[in-house]
């Protein structure tokens, strides 16, 4: 599997505070993705990146922003966290686009009180 790490692995924060989650990969994959997973909804795409400084919105992008200043790092920021953003967040990477195999990180469990 691709070397994908996420930090932090667990975080508890309060409503209204900014939160940044980090995804780091060592495989030099061009494409990177942020998903959230909630009971009854499966995995939903938040944002994705198709290269350094190239990003686009996914299915559930409201309230989230992303940045990718170098190939190996993809940051997800919640500008002002809300309780509805309590979720498990997964980062993924792929060498190619579309249906090419995605490799997932271990996930970050975020709780917004």
């Amino acid at each position: 599997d691709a070397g994908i790490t996420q930090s932090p692995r667990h975080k508890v924060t309060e409503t209204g505070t900014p939160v940044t989650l980090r995804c780091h990969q060592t495989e030099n994959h061009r494409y990177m993705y942020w998903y959230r997973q909630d009971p009854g909804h499966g995995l939903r795409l938040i944002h994705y990146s198709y290269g350094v400084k190239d990003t686009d919105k996914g299915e559930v992008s409201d309230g989230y922003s992303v940045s990718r200043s170098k190939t190996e790092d993809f940051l997800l920021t919640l500008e002002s966290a809300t309780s509805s953003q309590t979720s498990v967040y997964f980062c993924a990477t792929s060498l190619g686009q579309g249906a090419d195999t995605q490799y997932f990180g271990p996930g970050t469990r975020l709780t917004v009180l």
Partner: protein
Amino acid sequence: LAKTTQPISMDSYEGQEVNITCSHNNIATNDYITWYQQFPSQGPRFIIQGYKTKVTNEVASLFIPADRKSSTLSLPRVSLSDTAVYYCLVGDMVTGGGNKLTFGTGTQLKVEL
């Protein structure tokens, strides 16, 4: 964007063959069919991918009929460790990037002794 439908849950016993069917009536010509497996507290992991007919690897087989409007993931001789959620995805390899894939809620497979 091809929508997929799969059973919410399935039960089986160790040693049995399990077949999980996914329907994707509006699959496009360039779309591939991909299956992922997810264990609790882990990110999804690629199992198998195919375009038509039959694909087999060391862990599973994928059967795709000629009209490609459905596909069946076959797990031979399941064990307790195969208890997981299985996702069927449909998407192309050429265009669209990450926002062309939808994971849905998947099928929860429970294997018992």
